[in-house]
Structure formats: C-alpha cells, structure tokens
C-alpha cells in the first residue's frame, strides 16, 4: 500500500505541475514544476513520508534505465547525426569541458572567499 501512496504523491505533484505549466503557458516542463511543488511541500511538512521515500528512491535508483526508450529514438535521427556528426562531437566535447572548468573554478573561488570571510568574523 505504501508504494501506491508514494506514487500518488509523485503523480499528484506532476499533475499539478502539468496543469500550471499549460494553464499559464510557461516554458518550464510540468514535472519540473511538480518537483518544485513537492520540495515546497516537504519543507513545510518538515520530513519525507516513508511511502514517498520508498517509491521515490526506488525510481531514482533505476533512473538510468528510464532513459533507454528515448535514447533508442536516436535510431530515427541517423540521417541528421551523420550529416552533423562533426558539429555534434565538437560541441559536446568543448562545451562539456568548458562547463566543468568554469563551474569548478568559480565554486573553488567562491568557497575560499566564504571561508576567509568566516575566519575574519571569528
């Protein structure tokens, strides 16, 4: 029974998110709004119900499996991929590397500054 309650909470949040996204024609996907709604709900409640945790963590554990059906959809885009393979490879390689580099440098500096400020206070 607990799994069903957990699933109902998740689907309920997704449902609300989907309705809000469509009603206000927001560019944000319904499940993302659902995640925000659930997060706010959890912050108000102050704890995660066991049923929700069992269902949610079960889903997240096998998250990678859920990507497969969409990933197989690449089969439909072989033509496009062959045509733009150079562009795709270059973009993915460079953009991913630059993103990791920039994020880690900025975080490192921001964290150091935060730590230094705290030491000065103390």
């Amino acid at each position, binding site marked *: 029974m607990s799994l069903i309650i957990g699933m109902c909470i998740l689907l309920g949040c997704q449902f609300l998110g989907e309705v809000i996204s469509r009603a206000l024609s927001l560019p944000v996907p319904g499940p993302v709004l659902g995640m925000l709604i659930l997060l706010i709900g959890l912050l108000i409640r102050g704890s995660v119900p066991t049923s929700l945790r069992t269902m949610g963590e079960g889903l*997240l554990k096998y998250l990678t499996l859920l990507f497969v059906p969409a990933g197989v959809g690449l089969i439909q*885009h072989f033509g496009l991929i062959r045509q*733009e393979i150079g562009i*795709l490879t270059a973009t993915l390689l460079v953009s991913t590397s630059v993103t990791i580099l920039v994020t880690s440098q900025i975080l490192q500096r921001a964290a150091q500054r935060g730590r230094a400020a705290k030491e000065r206070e103390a």
Partner: protein
Amino acid sequence: MNDLRLEQIWVYLSASPLLHLSATLLAFIVATVINRWAGGTPLLHPVIVTIALLIGFLLLTGTDYPTYFQGAQFLHFLLGPATVALAIPLYDHRERVRRMLWPIVIGTLSGVATAVVSAVGIATALGANTETVLSLAPKSVTSPIAMGIAEKLGGIPSLTAGLVLITGVVGCIVGPWIFRMTRITDPTVQGYSMGLAAHGFGTAYCFASIGAVAGAFSGLAMGLSGLTTAFLLPPIVHLFGL
C-alpha cells in the same frame, strides 16, 4: 508448417508491448554485466550499451521505432514521476545548501549559463541547423528535464535524450582530467561541477570514484541546475534569436 507457426508467433509478439518491454529490461541486464566485466569504464556505460544493443535488435528485426516505443513507453512514462522525486535528495541536502548558499547560487548560475551559451554558440558558429541547436541547448541537464525543455523550445526530444547521454559519458571522461590539470581537490567542488555538467552520469561517477560527499553534491547540482536551466534556457535561446 513449423515455419508458418513461428511466423504467426512473431507477428503476434512484434505487435504486442510484451516483446519490446522485455527486450529493454533484458538488454539492460546484459549491458550491466558487460560493464562490470569491463571494470566499470564510463566508455561502456550500461545505458549506452543497452541502447546500442536495442538499436541493433530493431535494425536486425526490421522493427520501426514507434512499434518499439509502444512497449517501452511504460518505462518512459516513469521519467515524469522520477523527475518529481528529485525533490527528495534536494530536501535531504537542505542544510548543506543553506551553509553554502552563495557559492552554490553563483556556481549554478554561471555554470548553467556557460553550458547553454557554449553549446548554442559553438553549434551555431559551426553552422548546425536550428533544430539541432535547440536539441543541443539543454544537453547538460538530466534527460527528463532536458527532453521537456527541448520539446517546449521546438527541438527534437529524442535527439536531445541521446545527446544528453553522450554528454554524460564525455563529462565522466574529461572531468577527472580537468580536476587534475587545474589542481582541484575539494570533493564538494568536484562533485558539484560533475553533477552540473554531466547530470546523473556525473553523479554515478562521483559516488563510485570520488566518494559519498562528492556524490551528494553532484546529485544536488543535478537537481538545482535542472531547475535553473528550465527557467533560464528559454530567455538565453531567445537572445540568440532562435
């Protein structure tokens, strides 16, 4: 006679969701075993191997994607509730977020902006067509969110799904090398950067190869950057005039 019966069974099976749902689960098990044999290398990530196996199977049996998807849609549907469930790890780490609020806000905003602007900028500069650019834009975000964004923007969700998976593999290969070159040793910084740039693949890598703190921060980055990208991407793409 026997051939005829086999053919009848095949006609039945190939039209029912049973075959392709079982094939997907079976391929995932085989891929997980192959990955374990290969010592867990990100180059042979179970998801990539599963997709390769299934594409091979579809090509061999001459099955088209819509027929396959009829069976696989049951798994695909669960991406929605799984996205909502990302709120649980976010909630669990709320104390950490509060303590590192400013570094996280600045890091997330600049990281997400870098990911989107560099992807859209490079692809546009190299002359990719608009659909490809829009499908590439959300590549650093976890698939369920990325696909939703691509769909809203006018990209191709299933192309995005594939590109997101490849981004994950690329991140796991270049990330550790970048950290070595730039002497970044703080596991929170490593984890957060991996989760932001390489979503769930980065998170899985952090848990397996760096440690639990890096993994937790990576999961946090995956959720926060997904959320941020969903709000930030449409206006950025608009700036590029797409």
